[in-house]
Structures are given as C-alpha cells and as structure tokens.
C-alpha cells in the first residue's frame, strides 16, 4: 500500500501547486473517499489511459458537471445506505468552478448534498494555455487578457466565489493555500466531519502560467496570503467564523516573484490599484494581526 492515495508517476509539471493540493486533500480525506473530477489539468495529468494516480474510486465526466455527477454518486450511496461511511469529494480548477461549473455547483450547494467541493484555484485556464478565468486577478497578463498599448492585463478582480458559495447558507466554506499545508489538511478534515455541502477553495500556484521558478511554489503561495491578496477564511452557515491573520506585506513583494505581473513593476499606478484590493481584503476580513 502506497503512503499516499495520489501516487507519483503522473505527468504534472515540476512545482505544480495543484498536484500538491490534490495530494494534501486526498491524504487528509483517506481511503473511504470517492472523487469526482471536472475536466482540467488535474484530470489530464493524473489519469491518462492506461495509468491512474488515484488509489481511491475516481470518476471524470465533463468540464462543468462534476458537482452534479457527485450529487448522483452521493444519492446512490444514500440509496445503498453507505453514504455515512463514504466521503464524496468533487475536484475542479477555477474555470470548472467559477465559470462553466457555477450552475452545477450552485445546484449541489442548494440541495445541500453531503459533498466536499474543492476548487484548485490557479487563477486561469492553465490546461488550455493560460487563458483568463473568472478567478484571474486584476491586471494579470494571460493569453486572453494580454498586456498591450491599451491593456494592463485582466480588467476585473477575482469573482468572489467563496462568498457566492457561503451565500447558499451551507454548513462550511473555506479558503486555503498550498503555502500552508497543515491548514489545508485541517480544513479538509473539518469539512468532512460536517454533514452537508462544503466548499473549499485552495490557492495553488502554477509555475508555467504564473511564470515563476518551479522551486518557488510554496514561497509564492505564502506571499499571496501575506500580502492580503488571498485571505484565508472560514464560513459556517454563511457567517464568517475565522480568518488567518497576517502582518501585511506590500503587494509588490508578491507580484515581483511572477512573470504574469512583470509589466506592473514599471507602473506604480497599477501597483497602487492592486494594493487597494489587498487593503480592502485586510479591512473587510480583519486580516491584520493586532499588535
């Protein structure tokens, strides 16, 4: 028996934050888990026939329907009387979650299926070549929000997906980051201890799409949290119940690590706008540690 339920040998890029996240999640969940995966990097790099990295039952159907497929799996387990002894986890990227998958997720949350939905948020469509998604941050240079004479990158901030999930009144919603691995696993275990629909959004750097060294994944992930650009929060039944407090660092410390924000280094005005997003987060969630 392997030490992990997500075994090596898959074809993820070096330094892939999503593959780290996936291993943390499934190893926290344990073997009595069925995984339903949307189309995306994780599905492609972990299950190319005739190989599979998954040591638990795993199913992929389409790009946008994993929340609905999982609803069917969970219903079948209820019918069979085995639901209470089996976790059902949905996995999707940010596009499969916040864009094309949003309707199916909303349905799953509204029906309050006993399922944990995990969004691995690498902030663009990496599998198809770094196109912007609804979770791409403001001013990010992607292949469909390129910088140019008339453009400083992605024109809108991230869609507030955790708040959208929390607004359904489900028992548990949280954000996490692969920069804080124990926190990821704590949140997975906490989510799975609660009956009903849960949503967990994990920030997972993509060295290829974010253009940083593959050895820097953890450092970049931590820097996003420390800048206030990726607040780590928990909601229970729609109410904010916990945040990870920080001593905020300037957003530049985070942005300068990545090629996708390189164009901002010459533009103090744009950096100010990104700093304003971080400041707003810090105030909204009370992120700043009281001295």
């Amino acid at each position, binding site marked *: 028996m392997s030490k992990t339920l997500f075994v090596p040998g898959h074809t993820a890029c070096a330094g892939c934050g999503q593959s780290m996240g996936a291993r943390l999640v499934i190893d926290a969940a344990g073997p009595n888990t069925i995984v339903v995966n949307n189309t995306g990097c994780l599905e492609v790099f972990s299950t190319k026939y005739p190989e599979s990295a998954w040591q638990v039952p795993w199913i992929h159907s389409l790009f946008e329907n994993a929340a609905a497929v999982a609803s069917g*799996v969970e*219903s*079948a387990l209820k019918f069979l009387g085995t639901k209470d002894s089996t976790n059902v986890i949905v996995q999707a990227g940010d596009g499969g979650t916040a864009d094309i998958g949003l309707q199916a997720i909303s349905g799953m949350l509204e029906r309050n299926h006993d399922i944990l939905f995990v969004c691995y948020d690498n902030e663009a469509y990496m599998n198809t070549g770094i196109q912007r998604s609804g979770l791409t941050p403001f001013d990010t240079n992607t292949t469909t929000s390129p910088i140019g004479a008339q453009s400083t990158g992605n024109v809108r901030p991230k869609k507030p997906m955790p708040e959208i999930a929390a607004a359904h009144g489900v028992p548990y919603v949280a954000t996490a980051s692969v920069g804080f691995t124990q926190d990821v696993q704590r949140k997975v275990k906490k989510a799975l201890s609660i009956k009903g629909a849960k949503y967990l959004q994990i920030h997972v750097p993509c060295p290829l799409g974010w253009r940083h060294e593959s050895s820097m994944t953890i450092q970049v992930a931590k820097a996003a949290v420390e800048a206030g650009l990726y607040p780590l929060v928990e909601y229970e039944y729609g109410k904010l119940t916990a945040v990870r407090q920080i001593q905020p660092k300037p957003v530049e410390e985070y942005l300068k690590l990545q090629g996708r924000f390189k164009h901002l280094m010459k533009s103090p005005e744009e950096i100010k706008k990104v700093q304003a997003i971080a400041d707003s987060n810090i105030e909204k969630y009370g992120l700043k540690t009281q001295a």
Partner: protein
Amino acid sequence: MKEFLEGSRAIAEIVKRCRPGVISAYPITPQTHIVEDLAQFVADGALKCEFVNVESEHSAASVVLGGVAAGVRSYTATSSQGLFYMMEVLFNIAGMRLPLVLTCANRAISAPINIWNDQQDSISLRDSGWVQMYAEDIQEASDFHMLAYKLTEDASIMLPVMVCMDGFILTHGIETVDMPRQEEVDKFLPPYRPLYKLDTADPVSMGILADPDYYMETRFAIQETMKKVLEKIPVLTQDFSKAFGRAYNGLVEGYRIDDAEKVIVALGSVCGTIKEVVDELRSKGKKVGLLKITTFRPFPAQKVQEALKDIPKVAVLDRALSLGSYAPVAAEVKAAFFGKKKGPKVISSFIAGLGGRDITKDSIREVFSLLTAKEVSCEFIDLKPELLKEKYE
C-alpha cells in the same frame, strides 16, 4: 392488469416497477407528467428512491450518470431543448458504457419555440451512442422501458437506451394499458448487478483520458456492440413475450406488406394512423402496407432490406429534418438499398407533422397518392400555401 391510463402515468408506473434508486429530472413540457407522478410515488413512500430535483437537464443527466456509476439503477426523462441541453452528457454516458434509460417525450426544437410533437429532438441525437426505440402506442412505450433496462444492463451491451414516445399524442393520450404486476417485473428484470462501479473496497478510475493511441478502439467497440444490439433485441422480445404475453419484433414490424405495392415507412405514433388508412385502402383493393421501424439506433438495415426488397414503391415519412439534405429516416432506408440487386424502384421521402401539426388520415392518403413512379425527396405534406404566399410571392 388492464388499466385506463394517461401515457405519462403508464410510464411512471412502469419505471416505478423497474425500481430505480436514483431519479433526476428537470421540468419540460411534455415530459412533466412522468416525473411529477414519480415524485409523488417517492413522496408517498410507494417508491424507495432518491429523487434529485436539479437546476437543469445538463445536471439531470449528470446526476443519473453519477448514480449508475456508483452502482444504482437510475432514470431520467426529458424533451426537446432539454434533450439538447443534455447532449454532451448523453454522448459521455454512452462513451463511458454506463447503462441508463431515458424517456424522450418527443417535441419540436426551437426556433420558433414550439412545445408540440415531432421527432427532431431524438433524431438529432442519433449519433450519440444511445440505442433509440420508438413507441407506437402507450402499451409499447410502457413495455419498452422494461426491455430497455434489460438491454442496457446486459453485460454484453452496456449502452444506454432512449425510449422515444411522441409528446402529447402518447404522453398525454389515454389508452387501455396492460400493466404488469411488480413480481412479474422483478422476475423479468432482476436487481442491477454492475460490472464495475465506484467502490472504495475496489477502487477504479472511470472516464479517463484516452490519447490517439487508444481513443479509436473505444469508438470501434461501441460500433461493434451496436451490431450485437440488433441480435439481442429479438432475443429479449422473445423472453418478454413469454413473460408478459405480448409479442414484439423490437426492430421493425411489417403491417400488411407481404403483397404490397406501396409501403410507408415510419416511426412512432403515426404508425397507428397509417394502419387505419392501410386497412381502409386494402378494403378497396389497394395493395398498401406499413413498415414500422421500432429501433432506429442501431439501424436495422438488414431487416429493412428483407421487409422491403419486393416492394415496388416505398414512401418514408419523417417527422424531422436534416436541414439541407435528405430526411433522416429516408436517408437510412435509401442507404440500405444502395448497390443491392433487389429493392424498391422508388423510395420517396415525405415530411409531415412538424411542430405538432396533426398527421390525419387524409395526410396519409395523400402520401400514398403522391407515391408514384416519380421519386420525390423531402415532399412536405399539409403545408399551408397561404402562409407561404405572404413570404415568397
């Protein structure tokens, strides 16, 4: 027991007796009465089942995909736009070789929006990998659901089955239907025993990526299985006949075609109307008949050849189009005879009953009268010239 039932009620009653553990549906006319009745059975405790009310047909199809993947017999029903919204999931279900049954209450496709019957919805999904059976009446529609589960769950088949019934005409029509007892259904259709499922005791990966080294063989395998379906259906209908006393061919059914000079080929409820006209014309000495196609996918080309090889003139009546080309069923019938020594001299193609326009006995008489030595293609029956004049003159 014979009961006087609305078509939708009959379907709900037979689906209940097939004991699905997961039902998921999204409302669309004219499918609604079926799933309303099933929801009531669950609410009353008459059917032990997880009934999942979803936010779209896309999710309805996805829920039953997940249900059967986890090892539980599952069911959904839809119509028209709903079937189209399910489309990518339906292809996916067939590709994953998951045994499912779906009722399609046939309805026209928008635009213009139209809730009434034709068969453009299911006909458009003919390439999806689903077996398609078309019911002539409510009894057939009901019986075909038992056959459909038996077929789809057969270990040598494992392809999903769509039972198509004309919207309103069959879903909202009321007929005397012989409903089997639960124990009879249980005997014919034992509990589902999946070949593979999502099981933590025996983990498998389902729906995985197949690159160019592997993909084609999966499609070849479905194509080969479709041939097996053509062999399997007549075997199952014999078993069915022994169990319930009703005999179906299951692929095609000839009606007074043995010495016929003119035969109409059709699918679905219009076959009842055609039979009446055939009887009338026969009583006047006209040698006419009907070939009903029950299973459209896989297409029973050989059975069609055998049935029509000595018929001089054949009319194919389509209730759908392949806009810009031959009508869908007509194209299949013509293809079945291409390069064959024996076959009809004329295979004419007629379009009728789109968007719920009634196909009357007069419509059928007109088809027979227009079936002459001069072959026609996509000849529309019952067009209103006064509406066309406004636009084109």
